[in-house]
């Protein structure tokens, strides 16, 4: 790279927490601003997509894209950014695996639109146009972008060089990535800015995890007074740390909450939920079929629990890939 690296940041379907992970670098962000050329960052700077179109192909060194792909507009924007960028980075869980936004794939887009735009009790114009259908005739307004049939992770639309997992990613990790880019090194294809191993390996409660755990009823946080120093699983509380990539500094565990898997699967796995199910099944005490059914019954909303962040990346969340 000659001169300061050129950076773009874009926000697809997400809550804004990933943008926050950049702002939370605090003083370090000033250094990033001074040592890079930020050409596109709608959350912070005034910029139009035409500014991106005006760039030469490959002019952007690294584009950070957060949020899931939910709208046709997202597809156009990420394809444009792909064309203009040497390196595309999936920034945060939604871009990585669909994230919480991906839970929309439990329903069809038609059901979601009907619920939000037609049947919501507060909706004054239930017969109004739906997103993607175009606005009233006679106006020059653009229609709202349309929903895709399903939420997709970024890598289903464009090639992605690197992933920064986390919901949101830790600001320290963001600083590390920016430092690397400022030093002139773009991430190699397949880089994941997290540990190779499961969260348990870096868990502060690691030493309290017994060799073998057997659960005869899963407890819920709200009906348990749990020991804040002991492994959650040893207290019959579901924690997905054993199947989740570490690298989050065990933020939730330190705040006395069990892991829900926002960093996604370790390198050994493909489908996060499948790994989570295998983990939970392995904890279930031996018995007969009725015992197993009762045990499974004690897990409220298992699909939403195991696939909280990864439904859109799973075959269970999008049907078959054509």
């Amino acid at each position, binding site marked *: 790279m000659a001169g300061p690296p050129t950076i773009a940041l874009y926000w697809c379907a997400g809550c804004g927490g990933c943008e926050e992970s950049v702002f939370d670098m605090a003083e370090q962000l000033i250094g990033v601003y001074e040592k890079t050329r930020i050409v596109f960052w709608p959350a912070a700077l005034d910029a139009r997509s035409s500014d991106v179109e005006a760039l030469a192909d490959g002019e952007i060194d690294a584009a950070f894209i957060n949020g899931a792909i939910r709208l046709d507009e997202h597809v156009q924007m990420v394809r444009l950014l792909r064309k203009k960028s040497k390196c595309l980075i999936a920034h945060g869980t939604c871009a990585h695996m669909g994230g919480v936004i991906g839970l929309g794939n439990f329903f069809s887009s038609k059901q979601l639109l009907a619920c939000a735009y037609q049947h919501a009790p507060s909706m004054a114009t239930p017969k109004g146009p739906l997103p993607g259908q175009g606005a009233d005739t006679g106006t020059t307004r653009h229609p709202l972008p349309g929903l895709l049939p399903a939420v997709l992770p970024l890598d289903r639309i464009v090639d992605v060089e690197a992933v920064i997992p986390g919901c949101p990613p830790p600001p320290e990790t963001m600083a590390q990535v920016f430092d690397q880019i400022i030093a002139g090194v773009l991430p190699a294809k397949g880089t994941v800015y997290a540990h190779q191993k499961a969260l348990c390996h870096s868990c502060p409660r690691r030493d309290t995890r017994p060799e073998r755990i057997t659960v005869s009823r899963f407890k819920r946080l709200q009906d348990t007074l749990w020991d804040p120093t002991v492994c959650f699983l040893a207290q019959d509380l579901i924690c997905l740390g054993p199947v989740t990539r570490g690298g989050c500094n065990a933020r939730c565990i330190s705040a006395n909450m069990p892991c829900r898997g926002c960093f996604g699967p370790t390198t050994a796995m493909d489908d996060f939920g499948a790994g989570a199910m295998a983990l939970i099944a392995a904890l279930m005490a031996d018995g007969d079929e009725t015992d197993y059914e009762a045990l499974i019954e004690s897990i409220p909303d298992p699909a939403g629990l195991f*696939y909280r962040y990864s439904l859109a990346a799973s075959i269970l969340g999008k049907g*078959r890939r054509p």
Partner: protein
Amino acid sequence: MKSLDLKIIALLCHWCAYDSADAAGRSRQDVPPQIREVHVRCSGQVDPAMVLKAFAAGADGVMVLGCKPGDCHYRTGNHQALKRMRLLQQVMAATPIHPQRLRLDWVSAGEGDRYARLAQEMVSQVKALGPVDAKGGM
């Protein structure tokens, strides 16, 4: 799509289920052509990822067959399968892939007639659901 195009992956344990499929062949039972048999060491080897991989690769149904309870060659392998598959079916109930596309059952070595019956039942169960719908891709 014709019902003959449906694909059902049958994951058969080495000690009982695979032998029962052999027995079905030897005794010239009718095993529907939609069934694709895959030999595994034990039903306890089948984890949810394996089943989902089959669906992702285009299967319309997955049938896991193991030894009858108490008869597992590895003592508790079929119990592990039971825990995993019931949990997976519970999860599938909330998703576009119907839980009846997955079946776990038991068959003894030599029970060729039972194997043929389970295979036929599985095919008609999946036929009723049709192919996995290609919803949601780009």
